[in-house]
């Protein structure tokens, strides 16, 4: 729900239900990074009720477009984090497998040298 933007659509308060700090803080972070934003913040009106109010004030652009762009940026950022993470885990597993093989070969070569002597 969008409040407060009837007269001036560059400043609005968005009320999201069933949300908490998890998404609100992340969206607030990406909103802040946008140069069109003059002010943004979030509040939780009551801790027992799962509702978040996100306030956005921009330099002229409609607030809901800026919010949509910020959410899109957040999605792209998370996608990038996920792909980087997957790659890092694969590399770690591969390098561990290589290390395990190297240790095995070192042990076997050590045994050979002992036997020859």
């Amino acid at each position, binding site marked *: 729900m969008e409040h407060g933007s009837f007269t001036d659509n560059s400043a609005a308060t968005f009320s999201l239900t069933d949300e908490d700090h*998890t998404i609100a*803080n*992340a969206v607030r972070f990406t909103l802040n990074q946008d140069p069109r934003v003059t002010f943004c913040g979030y509040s939780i009106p009551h801790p027992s009720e799962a509702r978040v109010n996100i306030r956005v004030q921009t330099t002229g652009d409609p607030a809901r477009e800026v919010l949509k762009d910020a959410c899109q940026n957040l999605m792209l950022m998370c996608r990038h984090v996920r792909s980087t993470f997957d790659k*890092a885990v694969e590399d770690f597993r591969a390098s561990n497998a290589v290390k395990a093989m190297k240790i095995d070969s070192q042990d076997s070569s050590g045994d050979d040298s002992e036997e020859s002597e």
Partner: protein
Amino acid sequence: MAEGVGEEKKKFSIWDLPDVPMGQLPPHLELQRSRVSCNKDAPIHTESIQYSGAYASMGIDNSSRLDRFSNNFRVEVVQLNKDDMEFDMIGIDAAIANSFRGILIAELPTMAIEKVLIANNTSIIQDEVLAHRLGLVPIRVDPRLFEYLSENDQPNEKNTIVFKLHVQCKRGSPRITVKLDALKWLPNGSELVKETRNATSDSSSKPETYTYFGCSQEIIPEFVKNPIIPKYPDIIIAKLGPGQEIELEAHAVKGIGKTHAKWSPVATAWYRMLPELRIDCNCCIIGTYRR
């Protein structure tokens, strides 16, 4: 005992800053923007300067565009075991890292026992305590293979896992400890029969049970390779004295940690900022080696 070389530490003075903005923050502001300093009494600069126009008066753009983020972001895995994992994320803000932590704890689905149908319980463990303990048991199954069970759905093979527990301690035998390996998986669904009031219903049809399994869960190839069992078969559920018996059926469904902590897939998840030690040139370094 090593002593620092006796040279004067270069003191930074703001009169040395150039008049024209150089496109980079002066060192003391860069320290304030990018590091949390731990002073003697409390850490300072803990709030991260996220506002894109924070340094606009100096002509420096604090906004982080996606391409800059993508170039600078790195993940380094420190350790990866079957049950735990530690990794470093470099180039990400604490807000997003905290959101990941919150999602890990509260919003990843798992399977956990929700309904416990108790047919017989003559042990000293109360029904509800037994049901609570069963709910907290971790089950070794991939939750992505199942669907959520909502109130209007009937429990079927796509959204329920059925377990059975039937233990008895005979009179004259010593006390027994009921561990989780006594919990058996029933791939064909519930075996407890619902009581139907209608006596005239045809007796040739299968009696109605508490779940409506269309087919057995055993035929799914994933479960042929890894049958569904609790993850740790040596967890103690109850203890029985002579003459006591427990007979129950437990239904496990998919859920998320927000509803109840038993559905949280992690024991815990936490993050901290990477510490950076800066040693002042002038101080004496007295060190002992720790092996």
